């Protein structure tokens, strides 16, 4: 199946079309952020402007259409610019860690022997460390900040791709068209890139799509736990952590501060959902061929 065919089917499939539409919406939000929510300070657009210094959140109003959260950070601004943060974290973390996993898994499977043994034991060691705890520890050591969060996530999330890629390559490596390429005198580089990776990449793409959502959630978790983005940074996870003290509402009205939690919550949920929808649809489309 060719790329065009896969794309065509992705669009024909209602579920993945929904996913694509949601992602398109977020892309527009991210690209046009400076126009949708003009920054107060053009040098630091990711810092959410504050509408005062009181602690208590303010309900949506004409001036702040989504209201303000703890310490008067504007929720609308945070959501819009937080989209950029989410894309940045997702694309960079998944992109780098998947590439690393692909290279490692391919080398291990293609060359086999002690190289395979060594690389896979290293992978095992990384896999045996609990993911969340490991990232928290690493961010704490490196210091707070989005870049360090991404480094920590990359460090501890490449293993599943490496394993998946290794098993894929192991099966394709024995295929006759690879043997044919060897018999033609092709060098390792050509065999790996033109023959093996092209025929093993789809499952990794599916996995990467699924991981987009989960990486953004983990980054949010870190922010929620207070080791992620610095205070005031446009990040959905942090906005939820601002809502922490206000979840219970006031006496007699538990939903009094609903907007502090629900609005950033919806943003994260929709973002992850859309990637998962696409990943699922991908798998359905490609499954008959994988089996």
């Amino acid at each position, binding site marked *: 199946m*060719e790329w065009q065919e896969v794309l065509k089917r992705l669009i024909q499939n209602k579920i993945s079309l929904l996913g694509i539409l949601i992602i398109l919406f977020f892309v527009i939000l991210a690209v046009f952020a400076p126009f949708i929510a003009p920054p107060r300070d053009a040098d630091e657009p990711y810092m959410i402007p504050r509408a005062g210094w009181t602690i208590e959140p303010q309900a949506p109003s004409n001036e702040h259409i989504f209201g303000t959260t703890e310490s008067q950070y504007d929720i609308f601004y945070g959501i819009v610019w937080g989209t950029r943060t989410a894309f940045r974290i997702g694309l960079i973390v998944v992109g780098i860690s998947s590439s690393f996993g692909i290279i490692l898994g391919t080398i291990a499977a293609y060359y086999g022997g002690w190289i395979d043994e060594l690389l896979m034991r290293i992978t095992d060691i990384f896999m045996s460390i609990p993911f969340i705890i490991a990232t928290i520890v690493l961010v704490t050591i490196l210091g707070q900040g989005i870049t360090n969060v991404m480094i920590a996530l990359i460090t501890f999330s490449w293993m599943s791709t490496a394993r998946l890629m290794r098993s894929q390559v192991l099966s394709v490596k024995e*295929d*006759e*068209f690879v*043997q*044919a*390429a*060897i*018999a*033609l*005198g*092709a*060098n390792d580089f*050509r065999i790996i890139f*033109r*023959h093996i990776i*092209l*025929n093993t990449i789809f499952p990794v793409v599916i996995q990467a799509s699924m991981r987009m959502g989960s990486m953004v959630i983990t980054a949010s978790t870190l922010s929620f736990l207070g080791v992620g983005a610095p205070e005031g940074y446009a990040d959905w996870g942090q906005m939820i952590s601002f809502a922490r003290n206000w979840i219970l509402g006031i006496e007699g009205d538990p939903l009094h501060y609903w907007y502090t939690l629900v609005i950033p919550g919806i943003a994260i949920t929709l973002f992850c959902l859309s990637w998962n929808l696409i990943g699922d649809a991908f798998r359905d489309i490609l499954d008959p061929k994988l089996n």
Partner: protein
Amino acid sequence: MAENLLEVKNLKKYFPVKAGVFKRTVAHVKAVDDISFAVKQGETLGLVGESGCGKSTTGRTILRLLEATEGEVVFEGKNIMELDKNEMRAIRRDMQIIFQDPYASLNPRMTVADIVGEPIDIHKLAKNKKERNQKVEEILENVGLGAEYMNRYPHEFSGGQRQRIGVARALAVDPKLIIADEPVSALDVSVQAQVVNLLQDLQQEYGLTYLFIAHDLSVVKHISDRVAVMYLGKIVELTDKKELYDNPLHPYTQSLLSAIPEADPKKKKDRIVLEGDVPSPVDPPSGCRFHPRCPKAFDLCPVKEPEFKEYGDGHFAACHLLEKE
């Protein structure tokens, strides 16, 4: 007499059987166990045998798609087992392979032009893309496929057409030797003949030498000049095809010939039906490997391995019965 293009001397290929936590080698599958033969310039040598006899392994070991355990493969006077990686890559231009499965042997994500053009790219046989595509077109024409197929993908073709693409790929480097590993056995009967005819035509046109590996004796007989019969990693008989069919010496060859069902209901053959199955190559029988199934085995057979000797002009066989006579 034509010169030998390829000489295989005492070739062995053992696959280790590993077991346990430390993956110790506990035994060996003796897939190819000390075989020698030569292929003459311009001829077709058939290599025939049942599944597991080592015929495909032989083909792949000759091309070093598998590394031999022992032995020499001399191609145009050079022992290619001693070549380094780069020298080996260069010599692959001269020796090509056609695979059995026309579905698995073509990269599903490459167009026909790229599949057939790949060897040209690898060995830099064209100055630019235009020249390359021109060459690809010519080769496709030669195997009976039109240029309109250039930009299609393998899944758009039938089995027979795919096999033609596989043949075109092998031809693209203008090789001297082609090892055809069961090239027609995955095809429909009516299409098999097309490919067999194609291979014969190409042999004449390009002066090719074939090592034709197959399990189907009638096809091998049709296309080959000489035939080698393998059983459990050994060549048991080797002679020209007429002699093999008129005067088979080895009891295995005799029973193999008689086992083939012929498309003629009138001919009720005197069939030698062999008992039992082919034994495992992990622990092959002692002495002559065929003795447990051989209808003519006698006391010497389980004890001593028969020598591969010449009985009459160019007719080789390995059997104690012949030595006795």
